[in-house]
C-alpha cells in the first residue's frame, strides 16, 4: 500500500515535472489545429451617441477589455470608416471631425496601425474621443480587426 502511495506520488511529480518542462522555453508546444481562437470584447458599447452641444469641449472616454484565448499574441487594428487617421465626421458639415486616441494597456498607438494584444490576458482598451466646440451630431464606424 505504501509502495502504491509512493508510486502515485512519483507519478504526480513526474507529471508536474513534465508539465513544467512543456511550459518552459525550448520545449515543443503543440496545440490542436481546430481549437478556435476566441477574442472576447467585454463592455464594448455598440455605439456612442455623441451629440456635441455648442461650446462643449472635453474628452469622452470609454473603456473595455479584450481577451483572446491563444498561445501567442494576436494583432489588433482599429480603423475608422471616415478617415485613415481615424476621426468621426460631423453629420451636417464637412471638415469638422472628432479625433480619437486609442491605447492598449496604457500604451497609446495610432489608428490603423496594427498592435499586439497579449495571449490569455484581459487587455485593457481605452478609447478617448476629443470633443471639439463644433455643435452637432457626429457619425463614424470603428472597426476592431483581430488578425491571427
Amino acid at each position, binding site marked *: 500500500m505504501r509502495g502504491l502511495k509512493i508510486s502515485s506520488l512519483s507519478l504526480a511529480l513526474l507529471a508536474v515535472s513534465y508539465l513544467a518542462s512543456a511550459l518552459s522555453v*525550448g520545449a515543443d*508546444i503543440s496545440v490542436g489545429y481546430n481549437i478556435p481562437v476566441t477574442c472576447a470584447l467585454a463592455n464594448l458599447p455598440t455605439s456612442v*451617441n455623441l451629440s456635441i452641444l455648442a461650446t462643449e469641449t472635453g474628452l469622452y472616454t470609454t473603456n473595455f477589455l479584450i481577451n483572446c484565448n491563444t498561445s*501567442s*499574441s494576436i*494583432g489588433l487594428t482599429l480603423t475608422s470608416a471616415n478617415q485613415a487617421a481615424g476621426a468621426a465626421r460631423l453629420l451636417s458639415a464637412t471638415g469638422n471631425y472628432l479625433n480619437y486616441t486609442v491605447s492598449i494597456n496604457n500604451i497609446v498607438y495610432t489608428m490603423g496601425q496594427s498592435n499586439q494584444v497579449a495571449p490569455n490576458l484581459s487587455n485593457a482598451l481605452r478609447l478617448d474621443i476629443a470633443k471639439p466646440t463644433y455643435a452637432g451630431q*457626429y457619425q463614424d464606424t470603428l472597426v476592431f480587426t*483581430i488578425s*491571427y
Partner: protein
Amino acid sequence: MKKISLLLGLCSLASYSFADGGSFTLFPTQIVFENPGKVKEITLVNLSDSMLNTQSTLKTYQQKSVNGRLIESNALISGSPAVIVTPVVMQNIAPNSKQSIRLLAIRQNSESEIVYRYYVKNLNPRSVDSSGTQFEIEYGMVVTILPQHINESYNLSYVKLNGKPYIKTTNTGNVHVLLKEVYLQSAGKPVAIGSVGRVLANQSAYLAVPAALDKSLGSQIQLKVAKAGLINFDQESQVQLTISK
C-alpha cells in the same frame, strides 16, 4: 425651455448602450491549400445573444517595412482571386448557432505562394442618418495556396543599423514563415527579445537587441526561435541556432 433642451442634450450625450457587440468566433484560424481544386471549411459561431449578420472580404496579403518592422498593407485583389468564398454575406445567424463558410482554391503558382487575408466583419443595422460612433468586430485570417515547388528557408543574422544592434530575419524561400518568439541565450538563460511574426518571401524583419543584453553576448550568439509549422500553423516548434556577432 433652454433647461429642457440642455437636459435632453445631456441625456442624448450619455445615451450609449452596452452590449456584447455582436461577438462571434471562427475556426480554424489558418487555411492552407496544398493543391487547387480543394475545398476548405471555416465554421462561424455566433456567441452573442442576438441575430448576427456578417460580410467577408478577401484581400491580397502584402507587407511593407516601416522602421524595420513589417506592417501589413493589404490591397484589393487585382484580377480574379485564386480562392472562391461562399457565402460572402451571412444573414440572421441565430445565437449560439453555426454557419459554414467554404473556400475553394482554383489555381496555384509553380514557384510562388499566393497569400490572402480573409476578413469577416459583423454588420450592425443602422440608418444612413443615424449619429454616433458605431463599433464593429472583424476577424482576419491568413489563406495560403502553397506553390507546386516549396522552398522553405530563412536566414537570421546579427546586424547593426545606426550603431544599434538587431537580429535580422530574411525570408529566402518562396513561402512565408511565421516566427513567433525569438530568444537570445545570455549567461545560459534564454531572454525573449520579441516576436517577428509573419515574414513573406523576399522580405526582411528586424528585432532590436536591448543594449544591456547586447553587451552580455559573446562573439557567437545562440538563438532560439519559436516557429509555427507551414501546413499546421498551430504546431509550434523551437529552432536553435548559432550566429556570429
